[in-house]
């Protein structure tokens, strides 16, 4: 054989093949530790489920913790004849259930093969311990500990969300990440922070001998994998305040949102009626009950319900008027029980006339805002009402309205703010004028915004012109939040215009009864609450009661929005609820003077008024 290049390459090829074959020889023939006779020994993998991350409130209290439960696993091929009666007795199940299950396994034996499947889920430890004592009588069955959720506080059912076993649909959406039998967060924080919370599964590898007994660890556990617990999450929620908010909203339909203006952190977010945390732990049992409830407790009104904001929206129109220069703080407008245009009239309530800007907020005059909106829409600086309308739309959106705010809460909806395109579609081009859409001035008509939007508006005013995107997860050691939550978002209105609005809101609350201020009921001595009432007309029944407030006036610590469906005047339900929450947050108690008010709210029941569709 010639020692030419071709032959050198052939020699190289043979050497490489020899290396592969030698390595194969070493692991397949020489190294006994890999070897298992197919008849005698097989490896059994037992999954170690990680503990899910704990969810804390802003002060470190545990909102969602973990407790141990056991899944009863069965490997159908290993099951021998067993004493069904004892089995049923210790496990608290009926013989029919067992028979049905065993039949199901027989039917699917080809698919199941040697796999282990779950027979009974989430046995409490006491039940499982009873079984463990007699487990030797039942080959093929074993318990698999896993941690399930526990809720020390009755707070934030909708907010926290629930964890449940993944279904086929979920598996299809997340291939490779989950296997059937795994649990995953489906709603709320559990879903939004699933990646951090879930941790990483591990496994033990065991060797099974010919009598189907697990005999020893494979390679002394060298190939095992530890489960990695999920990361803990710290939320911005104040657990006690959340609980108090839920009590205030009990037996009312609506929503209550509180934000810390200086950070955008959501302190409280109540959607009423909501899901009780007791149901969350075992959502499977309660699911049909929850989903058939006519008040839709799964529907998170705080971020999903598009409500008309009512008079609260006047603040936005006022600010736009100031910025556009069609209004000065000293502009006086008359009001004679409403605003008259042509034969029509947009009504108002009795108060002194004429009034200036601050007084218009304090007394919530409708006519004043009709003038403002007309001035904005009929502003000669713009070529047409279309242009003016779109400018107005742009302003309103800069407050976060009409779009998702981008909070870290899943399933947030954007609401709606109309523009010229919308009205051209409804009325035809040129078929509408400022008076056609005049109800926008008082937050009625085609506006839809969520309670979160309103709370954000309140925080924006409290900050005198900017907001942080509201969010519910705080930065903590293992969990970083998006830097966008640390950015200031300025509106298109100069910050210099905001103090006037704040002044009006202060006077609305703190002018005393009889002064014409609409929100005197919300006043708390020493807290300097600033607020604005709203009464949103509702074609389906009683008006909705709306209130936003923040306090203290200088250096605001909390901004609240309360929305009570069919609650009537803003001052009747929403204002007391929001102010009580504010008081509770700032002083951690309710003053004696306001105890009767608190009683009225806690015991108030408006459920009859709400029409169930």
């Amino acid at each position: 054989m010639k020692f030419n290049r071709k032959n050198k390459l052939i020699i190289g090829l043979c050497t490489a093949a020899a290396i592969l074959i030698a390595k194969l020889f070493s692991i397949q023939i020489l190294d006994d530790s890999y070897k298992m006779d197919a008849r005698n020994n097989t490896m059994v993998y037992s999954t170690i489920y990680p503990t899910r991350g704990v969810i804390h409130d802003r002060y470190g209290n545990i909102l969602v913790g973990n407790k141990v439960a056991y899944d009863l696993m069965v490997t159908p091929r290993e099951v021998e004849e067993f004493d069904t009666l004892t089995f049923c007795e210790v496990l608290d199940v009926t013989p029919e259930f067992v028979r049905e299950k065993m039949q199901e396994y027989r039917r699917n034996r080809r698919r199941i093969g040697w796999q282990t499947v779950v027979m009974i889920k989430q046995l409490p430890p006491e039940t499982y311990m009873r079984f463990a004592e007699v487990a030797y009588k039942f080959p093929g069955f074993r318990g698999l500990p896993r941690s399930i959720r526990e809720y020390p506080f009755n707070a934030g059912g909708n907010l926290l969300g629930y964890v449940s076993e993944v279904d086929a649909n979920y598996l299809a959406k997340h291939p490779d990440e989950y296997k059937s039998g795994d649990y995953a967060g489906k709603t709320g924080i559990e879903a939004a922070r699933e990646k951090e919370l879930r941790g990483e599964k591990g496994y033990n590898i065991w060797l099974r001998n010919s009598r189907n007994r697990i005999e020893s660890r494979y390679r002394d556990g060298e190939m095992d994998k530890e489960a990695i617990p999920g990361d803990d999450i710290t939320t911005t929620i104040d657990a006690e305040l959340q609980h108090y908010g839920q009590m205030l909203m009990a037996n009312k339909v609506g929503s209550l949102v509180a934000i810390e203006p200086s950070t955008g952190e959501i302190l409280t977010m109540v959607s009423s009626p909501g899901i009780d945390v007791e149901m969350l732990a075992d959502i499977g049992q309660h699911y049909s009950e929850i989903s058939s409830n006519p008040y839709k407790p799964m529907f998170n009104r705080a971020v999903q319900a598009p409500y008309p904001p009512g008079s609260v929206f006047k603040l936005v129109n006022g600010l736009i008027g100031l910025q556009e220069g069609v209004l000065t703080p000293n502009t006086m407008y008359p009001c004679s029980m409403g605003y008259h245009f042509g034969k029509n009239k947009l009504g108002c309530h009795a108060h002194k006339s004429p009034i200036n800007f601050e007084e218009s907020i304090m007394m919530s005059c409708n006519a004043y805002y009709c003038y403002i909106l007309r001035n904005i829409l009929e502003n000669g600086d713009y070529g047409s009402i279309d242009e003016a309308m779109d400018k107005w739309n742009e302003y309103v959106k800069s407050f976060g309205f009409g779009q998702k705010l981008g909070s870290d809460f899943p399933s947030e909806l954007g609401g709606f703010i109309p523009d010229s395109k919308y009205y051209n579609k409804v009325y035809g081009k040129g078929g509408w004028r400022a008076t056609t859409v005049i109800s926008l001035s008082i937050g009625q008509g085609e506006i839809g915004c969520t309670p979160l939007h309103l709370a954000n508006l309140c925080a924006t005013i409290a900050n005198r012109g900017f907001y942080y995107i509201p969010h519910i997860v705080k930065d903590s050691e293992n969990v970083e939040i998006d830097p966008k939550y640390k950015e200031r978002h300025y509106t298109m209105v100069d910050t210099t215009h905001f103090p006037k609005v704040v002044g009006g809101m202060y006077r609305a609350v703190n002018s005393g009864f009889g002064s014409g201020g609409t929100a005197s009921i919300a006043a708390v001595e020493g807290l300097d609450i600033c607020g604005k009432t709203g009464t949103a007309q509702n074609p389906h029944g009683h008006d909705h009661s709306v209130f936003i407030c923040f306090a203290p006036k200088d250096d605001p610590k909390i901004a609240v929005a309360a929305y009570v469906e069919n609650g009537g005047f803003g001052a009747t339900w929403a204002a007391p609820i929001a102010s009580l929450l504010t008081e509770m947050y700032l002083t951690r108690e309710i003053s004696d003077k306001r105890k009767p008010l608190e009683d009225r709210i806690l015991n108030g029941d408006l459920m009859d008024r709400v029409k169930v569709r």
Partner: protein
Amino acid sequence: MIDAGGHRGRGLAKTIDWSLVICWLVLVLIGWANIYASIHAAESGSIFEFGSRSGMQAIWIGTSVIIAVLILFVIPPRLYEGLSLPIYLIVIGLLVAVIFLGIEVKGSHSWFAFGPVRFQPAEISKIATSLMLATVMSQLGYKIGRLKDFVLTAAIIVLPMMIIVLQSETGSALVYVGFIFMLYREGLSGWLIFMIGMAILTFILTLTQSPFVAVLVLLGVASLCICLYSGRFKWWLIICVPAIALLSFIPDIFTAIAQAQIGSEAVEAIEAARAEGTAAEMDIPFIMKVRPLYVLLAVIGIATPFVAFHAFRERNTFTHLAIISLLAGIVLVFSTDFLFNDVLQDHQRKRIEVLLGMKEDPAGVGYNVNQSKIAIGSGGLFGKGYLHGTQTTYGFVPEQSTDFIFCTIGEEWGFAGSAFVILLYVFLIWRIIHDAERSREGFTRIYGYCVACCIFMHLFINIGMTIGLMPVIGIPLPFISYGGSSLWAFTAMLFIFIALDRNERKYF
């Protein structure tokens, strides 16, 4: 039999290299059977069940037969030489386009999706590159030793490689390194392969041992080469070996001196702080400030000018080249950290760390390899029998019908079966080389070597990966792994060679 050119040649049975066709068929059928074995537990249907992977593979095999027939009987083999440039350019275009238009699969943008059909241009770029190389290198007057020709050849190989790296498919790009064997056959200096081997060794030594050891080994190899070249092997034994042995004691000597000065605990404390990068504030004795590596470099720095001057007087360019290579190697040692930490991606770095034993990680990156070793290792001499594997059927081995298909073979057919498959590949490659060498045309020979190199690289990397010899690089086992575009591409690649080979044999 009338071929596409209309010429009447020798009969079909005598001109086609049937051993290659049969080899191809056996490999494809082995693949199909094992794909079924790897999925039959999860999807208990028949091997033909439509929609299951084995059913789909049956479709791919059927279409591959069509491709093979087209190449053998319809497409005139003469076309390839003329069309190689347009094909090459189109494929390069596709490779670039897929980065922007392709869908993302496991973090790499290398797949086109047409509805349910997915296709990876990187698969056919091997064919296009091979044809292009064959065309260019078979030109009259081509000499690989000439710089212009060499640069052109290198560019043809490196261009698709670079684009594939940009697609984050580093594994597929690695296959192109295999063309170096073809270049070697065509006259490239064997030193280049030697240099590449040394570079890899240096890289591994720097990572697993220390830069000091790497430089020492480089010094030893360089001096050995210089001495061997000038026929002074005895000198090397008498002078260089003792000198290098002495140098290798420098670290120990330094540590001993330092320990004598400040005590062994203080030395350990300083070393620990250095590992963490917090030694800057510590009071470090002079002897520990002088690193052994720098002493070694100083020795090299003093010695090389003498050697170089001596070589200059003797007009010995080899020694100069050896010295330059040594210096290049030292530069590599110092840039290893940078290459390893900044150029490689996270997952690639981890795979190499696990392979080299720098990190034990049976749970994370090591998982695939451990599972696959368990599966193969448990096969024993004759395996557990077809469809009786326990490890692969229960889904513990990931990607078991594609990149890790060899696990199923190893587990169910044992050492006997795995060795048979490897020997089958060896036969296939040997046969391709044999036919290529017999060819009278440079084009056919070079293309044949390209095919052999590609199949070899896939074979060695894929099987090496499943048994822990290579890092985890996700490339398929030719003809056996599940997947349409890979099977089509390898089939086309092989049958183009068979067609070229047949074309010649018809007339001679």
